């Protein structure tokens, strides 16, 4: 490569062969947004079918394919890659590094992702249809009773898992080796910290997911019986392996979101983050605990009472470090000179709604009560509060917060705030009623339901259409900003923002920190 001072290459090859962390970050962000729209479209089909009781729009089999693909695409295609994109953009700029530690691998970890999802989406057109066994793909639904397309599904999980592992290795290598002199670990911005810990989680559990799908593959094609009782295996084993991955996975999704809010709330409160060190330790504690609580997803499989109790108390324990974080954010705002630009609105929205999701999580963690809640819409409400109002809201906040830095143009604040309020209302109208129908006994993943659930479901559907539509406004705002937003060249776009990323020019030049900055 030799000359490091050239600008980006021209045309398509710029994107295909780029090793620039900003280019790769941008591609991740756009890709994840495309997946967000696709997964969202599937959700609209689900909510349209559930608008009224009875079967009106789609076949039950297709409905199941929609719930499955919606979940898979949102988790693995939208949320995870969006945060990897953000990590690519921001981590080098936050720690004063010129680029990621392994730029070529970075290119690979992005470019294997679109084919993986192309394969996954193409299963819709295959004989027997797309996977219809839910995003948790429990055996034997995903083995003995799976459609033939399951093999493609397995392959795509392998590939996207590989991509995640490569991305995480890159992030860890960058944070451990590329920090500017003076940037000690305990000076790193919290977003970098949460991502460092997330990356370790990913390296530890994505291979477990790969192991789970590999066992499925062997059961389906090579005559083994890991999950088949007939051959001495056990379907419950699948659930243990899956959730050993799956529970850390939910923290993989939320920890970077914690990092984002920990950057934004201080900026708009014009006060440093309260309790920085406790935030770091709380993140580490959450990550550790996430390995010993997986069976709270399996209270009803028939565990011994000691197991139920262990997993119940361990799960409740997670609420402690999580509570530390929530209190720290609130204390950061306390007596700050706060202002409420769009990123701050989304962060406060995150704080309020994530806390609700945390509380429903606590309700679910009570083993005897979970027998009632399990596999009902109550669980659906819980995880959408933590994943949508948690991860997606914080990701949206991040885009509004850093977009001016990325492209040197200001987004339309009025439209941003409108987007927030419509999202906030749409989200709550969609998911709050699901708590009620869940408690009243409406099971999840069904295309039809009993009449008494009709009103709340109609509300849910209307809310979902509102929330979905508001994302179009978001897309419009971002594009309008990039092509015609009001130019800004302030290094500090936000007067309260702190951190190395705000010391470089705006828009951020193609190469930053080729000579390391001085860190106080």
């Amino acid at each position, binding site marked *: 490569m030799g000359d490091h001072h050239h600008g980006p290459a021209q045309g398509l090859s710029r994107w295909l062969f780029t090793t620039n962390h900003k280019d790769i970050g941008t591609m991740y962000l756009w890709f994840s947004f495309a997946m967000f729209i696709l997964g969202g479209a599937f959700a609209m089909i689900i909510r349209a079918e559930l608008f009224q009781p009875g079967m009106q729009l789609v076949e039950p089999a297709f409905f199941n394919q929609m719930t499955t693909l919606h979940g898979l695409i949102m988790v693995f295609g939208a949320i995870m890659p969006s945060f990897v994109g953000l990590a690519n953009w921001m981590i080098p700029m936050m720690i004063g590094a010129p680029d990621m*530690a*392994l730029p070529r*691998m970075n290119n690979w970890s992005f470019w294997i992702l679109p084919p993986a999802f192309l394969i996954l989406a193409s299963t819709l057109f295959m004989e027997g249809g797309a996977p219809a066994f839910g995003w948790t793909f429990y055996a034997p639904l995903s083995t003995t009773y799976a459609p033939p397309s399951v093999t493609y599904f397995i392959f795509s999980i392998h590939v996207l898992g590989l991509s995640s*592992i490569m991305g*995480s*290795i*890159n992030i*860890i*290598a960058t944070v*451990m*080796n*590329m920090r500017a002199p003076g940037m000690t670990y305990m000076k790193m911005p919290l977003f970098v910290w949460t991502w460092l810990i997330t990356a370790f989680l990913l*390296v*530890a*559990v*994505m*291979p*477990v997911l*790969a*192991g*789970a799908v*590999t*066992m499925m593959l062997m059961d389906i094609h*090579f*005559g*083994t*019986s*890991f999950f088949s*009782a*007939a*051959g*001495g*295996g*056990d379907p*419950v*084993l699948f659930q*243990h*392996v899956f959730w*050993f991955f799956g529970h850390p996975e939910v923290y993989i999704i939320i920890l970077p979101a914690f990092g984002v809010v920990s950057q934004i709330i201080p900026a708009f409160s014009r006060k440093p983050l309260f309790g920085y060190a406790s935030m770091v330790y709380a993140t580490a504690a959450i990550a550790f605990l996430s390995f010993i609580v997986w069976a709270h997803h399996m209270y009803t499989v*028939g*565990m*011994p009472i000691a197991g139920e109790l262990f997993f119940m108390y361990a799960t409740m324990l997670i609420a402690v470090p999580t509570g530390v974080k929530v209190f720290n954010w609130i204390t950061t705002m306390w007596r700050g000179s706060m202002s409420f630009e769009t990123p701050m609105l989304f962060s406060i929205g995150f704080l309020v709604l994530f806390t609700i999701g945390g509380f429903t999580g606590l309700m679910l963690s009570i083993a005897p009560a979970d027998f009632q809640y399990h596999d009902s819409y109550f669980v659906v409400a819980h995880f959408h509060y933590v994943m949508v109002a948690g991860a997606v809201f914080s990701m949206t906040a991040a885009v509004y917060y850093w977009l001016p830095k990325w492209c040197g143009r200001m987004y339309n604040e009025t439209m941003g705030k409108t987007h927030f309020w419509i999202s906030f209302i749409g989200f709550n109208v969609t998911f709050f009623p699901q708590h009620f129908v869940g408690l009243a006994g409406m099971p999840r993943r069904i295309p039809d339901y009993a009449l008494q659930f009709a009103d709340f479901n109609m509300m849910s559907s209307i809310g979902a259409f509102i929330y979905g539509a508001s994302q179009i406004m978001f897309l419009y705002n971002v594009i309008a900003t990039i092509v015609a937003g009001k130019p800004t060249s302030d290094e500090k776009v936000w007067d309260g923002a702190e951190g190395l990323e705000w010391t470089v020019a705006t828009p951020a030049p193609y190469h930053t920190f080729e000579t390391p900055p001085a860190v106080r």
Partner: protein
Amino acid sequence: MIRVSKNPTVDTAAKLVAVAIGMFAFVFVVMVPLYDVLCDALGINGKTDGSQYTSVPVAIDDSRTVTVQFVATNNEGMPWEFGPSVTAMKVHPGAVNDTVFFARNPLSKDMVAQAIPSISPARAVKYFHKTECFCFNQQPLEANAKAEMPLQFIIDQDLPKDIQTITLSYTIFDVTDAVSGSLAAR
């Protein structure tokens, strides 16, 4: 700390690759066997261990009577007629008991079946010993053939006093394809 490479980035990356490979292996060499071991040791899942019990001569405890119920279930799509010859027996702990299950293959093709046992309450698993069971092996039956399948068991004298009824349930699976595929089941 061991150094894999002088280049610190390569060093970090190599170690992480090792961790990832290790975790993949962990699933197969730790999680799967550990699951089986734990289920056996704790007797959870109602799984009895699939092996034969060599009886140790013990006194028969005539003072106690335990009811053993037999349940037979066909896995989805399994066409055999399959059931116990008696639905319940009253037995004394320590005594050797015999019974038979019968099976008939109604189809005009040869088939192979595997019966999978399960015991409830799960706490009783440790105390239910099978000295002979058709479930230890796969059961081939020719087209339209019938068979009587023996079961011999002993209830341990240490069975907790509060357990008065034990249910032994068999689910029968069609494994014809898996066997003809000739790749041995695990």
